[in-house]
């Protein structure tokens, strides 16, 4: 118990002292995970719209694949991305392995199915005739789609937040494709694993606290957005 308490105190002291390495790792974590989430949203929302709003052969297969992807093990993603980016692999010529770009790719692969599955469910909650009604009021198809996305904005935001939560907290893929190189590809999760393995519990707890704070901030944004909706009377 003392170890935990001492670790907590040391972690807080470390954070308050403004340790440059800690903040660099935090900044890289946010950059990698936010970029990966944006990519997942850009790919995932149109795919979810197609799955939710149109009929095409294999639609259910895509949805089933996305639902399976909700539980996609990051280690498996890391393995496949590593093989793809390995020097002798199909994409080895790009030299991306052990770079933040590789981590972004891996995390986008993890996040996209989450966005597709949750966003498709969100869009299906909206009345099936919503697009027809918006077009029946004079909207172009693109404008009607934007109105639909606006209508489902809160569950869509929740889908993006869920994807961000998943990628910022994963360690397997980040470790495998990033390599946990100090000052280059070290993010909070891989740094916490390394610190724990070295017995530097204060440092590991500090990283853990930052991750917890990020998770809290994400949920705070979501909660505030939900409470900006007009109150039902």
């Amino acid at each position, binding site marked *: 118990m003392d170890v935990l308490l001492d670790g907590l105190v040391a972690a807080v002291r470390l954070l308050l002292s403004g340790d440059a390495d800690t903040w660099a790792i935090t900044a890289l974590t946010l950059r990698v995970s936010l970029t990966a989430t944006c990519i997942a949203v850009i790919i995932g929302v149109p795919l979810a719209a197609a799955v939710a709003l149109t009929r095409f052969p294999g639609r259910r297969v895509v949805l089933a694949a996305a639902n399976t992807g909700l539980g996609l093990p990051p280690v498996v993603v890391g393995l496949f991305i590593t093989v793809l980016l390995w020097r002798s692999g199909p994409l080895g010529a790009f030299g991306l392995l052990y770079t933040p770009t590789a981590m972004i790719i891996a995390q986008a692969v993890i996040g996209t199915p989450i966005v597709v599955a949750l966003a498709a469910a969100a869009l299906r909650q909206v*009345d099936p*005739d*919503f697009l*027809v*009604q*918006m*077009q*029946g*009021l*004079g*909207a*172009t198809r693109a*404008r*009607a789609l934007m*109105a639909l996305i*606006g*209508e489902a904005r809160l569950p869509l935001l929740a889908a993006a937040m869920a994807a961000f939560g998943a990628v910022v907290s994963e360690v397997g893929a980040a470790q495998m494709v990033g390599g946990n190189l100090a000052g280059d590809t070290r993010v909070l999760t891989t740094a916490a694993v390394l610190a724990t393995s070295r017995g530097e519990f204060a440092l590991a707890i500090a990283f853990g606290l930052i991750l917890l704070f990020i998770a809290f901030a994400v949920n705070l944004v979501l909660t505030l957005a939900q409470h900006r*909706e*007009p*109150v*039902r*009377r």
Partner: protein
Amino acid sequence: MSARIGCRDLRVSARGQEMLHVEQLDVTAGATLAVLGPNGAGKSTLLRALAQIGGHLRTGQVLLDGQPAGHREMRAAVAAVLQRPILRRGTVAANAASGLRLRGVGRAEAARRSAPWLAKLGVGHLAGRDARTLSGGEAQRVALARALAVTPRVLLLDEPFAGLDATTRTDLLADLRAVLDNLDTATVLVTHDRHEAHALAEETALLVDGRIRQHGATSQVLDHPVDTECARLVGYTNLLPPALTGQPDLLVARPERCHPLPNGTIPPPDSITVRGTVRRVVPLGGGTRVDLDPEPAGNTLACLIPADSELKTRPGHPATITIATADLRPVAARSEDRIAIRVPLPDPLA
């Protein structure tokens, strides 16, 4: 003067099957056309084809002011109100303005132009309310205000009164009629309720199996159906084949115009009588429905009698009904009706 909206040889197909084929339809500015049809007849499909929205394959022409119109022209001219009032998140005022907003009108201008329509439809006092808290009738009023606020040249109404209780529906019908009377808009109302057609439309078209079976002045169409399916649509649900009436034509009658005769009563002049056996007697609150199996054979006939009628009858009892000849209409029989009203041949072994 050319019609405000019309179509020529309009066909809609889905999965290789033709769902709708309308050779010609025209609605002039300021007029309302009711398209009456049973469920699945293609009413909503017709409306969406006219508006050129929805994913079905369309061929033929939609005309706006006599000229062939494409997506862009129709999008600018049309506003549609669907059966369910699909409102967006936000206040009633924001919803009323949303049609204009979708057309690129600024927020303040859209609010200014839509507010009077909320008042005209009796929901001005709800402007600040969250749209999700409205009753069905209130929500449909907001949906109508939203559509009218864009000052459409063509208003398409897809069963906007379905799902409303009787009082709400009657009030809304009256309010909408008052609004439409002062507009230059061509309105197409699809419905399965002849009372709505009667209340709102100068002209009515009967749509059955994707084809317009009858089209004309509402009073004429509702009171002079051309065939048995049209008759059923407009409330002439009792079929009286020649074998029952002794008349050369197949006749139809409304249940409320068929009167059971108390025993020993002489039928009134200028009427026909049909004898049979009472199948069932169903109290309906405001009246009683008596179903009669006619003799020698034929479709069951329904009679609606007032609740305070002194007529006492029970299932299995013989009964006679009388129908004034002025309440009978001759119609053409459809093939399926010819089978249904076939008089069975005598049993050769009997």
